[in-house]
């Protein structure tokens, strides 16, 4: 039972990161129909920003996170401005190839700047909290709390503000959005910037728990795609539920079946969903 609880907590922490990454991906897909493979590179870049801030600059962790949010938010916006804006109305294949191009470009950049090595990031919060026989590091608590706070913030932004409503409007009917006078170019830029911020929060929360390397985004982005397909392309609640579901399934499979199995589970789930419910588990009813 203790082992189960321990793994559940670990799964929830991992799920928080998965959900944040998947949210940014599903948002950009839902609003702009861009399958943004480069989203994983934003997450990777955020981890490097934290790495540099904590090691070279020796800044406090909060400052490192803030720096990552600003830098990667701008990078996300720049992606839209430089690449995807010019692909409006093109086929999904164009979008996908462009996104892969951006992914390789950013991975290559990280490789040139920091090299291919796995780099450990200092752990600013190294305490451990114990309760009911479960040990949980302060960093994992921070991951869960910060992720949930981010999700609440995102939900409030989307549902309670006119800016958020204009994003939703564009997602639901592009022509309708144009006809009520929404500047769709600005909304597109904003959506990419928000997805960058979400990736930045995920990347800077995970950095102290893992090793940072140029390809660290690739594995995560594949899983985020699985989550987004699982939850329904473009669905915000689907990305959150899917993120936690996948992470808990992975942790449990790794504990009770075999460690190697945990990496397999995402893709097993993907195949099952694609065969039995290709529109996703939580698709919005229409």
């Amino acid at each position, binding site marked *: 039972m203790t082992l189960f609880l321990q793994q559940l907590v670990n799964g929830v922490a991992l799920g928080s990161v998965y959900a944040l990454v998947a949210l940014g991906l599903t948002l950009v897909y839902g609003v702009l129909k861009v399958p943004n493979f480069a989203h994983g590179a934003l997450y990777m870049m955020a981890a490097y920003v934290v790495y540099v801030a904590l090691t070279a600059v020796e800044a406090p962790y909060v400052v490192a996170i803030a720096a990552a949010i600003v830098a990667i938010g701008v990078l996300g916006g720049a992606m839209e401005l430089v690449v995807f804006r010019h692909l409006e109305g093109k086929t999904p294949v164009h979008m996908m190839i462009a996104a892969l191009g951006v992914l390789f470009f950013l991975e290559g950049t990280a490789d040139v700047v920091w090299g291919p090595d796995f780099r450990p990031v200092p752990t600013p919060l190294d305490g451990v909290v114990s309760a009911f026989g479960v040990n949980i590091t302060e960093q994992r608590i921070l991951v869960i709390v910060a992720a949930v706070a981010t999700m609440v913030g995102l939900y409030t932004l989307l549902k309670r503000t006119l800016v958020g409503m204009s994003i939703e409007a564009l997602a639901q*009917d592009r*022509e309708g959005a144009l*006809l*009520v006078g929404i500047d769709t170019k600005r909304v597109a830029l904003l959506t990419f910037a928000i997805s960058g911020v979400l990736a930045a929060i995920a990347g800077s929360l995970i950095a102290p728990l893992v090793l940072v390397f140029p390809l660290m985004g690739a594995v995560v982005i594949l899983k985020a795609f699985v989550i987004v397909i699982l939850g329904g392309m473009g669905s915000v609640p689907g990305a959150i539920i899917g993120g936690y579901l996948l992470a808990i399934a992975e942790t449990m499979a790794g504990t009770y079946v075999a460690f190697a199995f945990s990496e397999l589970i995402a893709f097993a789930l993907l195949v099952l969903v694609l065969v039995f419910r290709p529109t996703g588990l939580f698709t919005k009813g229409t």
Partner: protein
Amino acid sequence: MLEVRDLRVRFGTFYALDGVSLSVKEGEIVVLLGANGAGKSTLFRTISGLHAPAGGAILLEGQDVTRWPAHRLVAAGIAQAPEGKHLFPEVSVGKNLRLGAYVRRRDVEGVRSTMDEVFQLFPVLREKERDAAGTLSGGQQQMLAIGRALMAKPRLLLLDEPSLGLAPLVVEEVFASIQKINEGGTSVLLAEQNAHAALKVAHRGYVIEEGTVSLSGGRGELMGNEEVRRAYIGI
């Protein structure tokens, strides 16, 4: 108010609009009659900035607004309830209306009072304020589309086939409200296949065929015209 001069719109090698000229004067309801595919929707979409014309000009109160982006045209006073409605289906009726006032978002008081006016015009929208737009009936959705366009407080309202797919009683209700909107001072350009209902409320009209204006005149002239009667009224 609105003047369209020799407007041409091309899709590949095909001219969907091949030199259309028409005008709407302050306070008028002008109807645009034409069969499916004659170019009515293309004209409306071009006026609203969703298509770039290949030639010609669009003037709003003397100002050249050809090739303006859609959002600037809404701010300048042209709002459209398009064919197919293009509502935000998963968003509530109230939020659809608030999004209609997007270009006036800083005028909180004004938006609230326009919303009251829309609710007075279409009381059913007030009842359904919290329901998702996608759950409304066809007639209610049409009312919401018109209401959403009114929220921008336009000087010129474009209505593309508002009677499409509606039951005759609902059509009457919609046309009565179009007349009321017009009496409030908004000029209206109306595209219709239902010439009978449209000519009852319009001051003037144009017949558009294969991308050009083939006939124009006052309400009485068009009502009395043999061809119009045969082609669009069916009597």
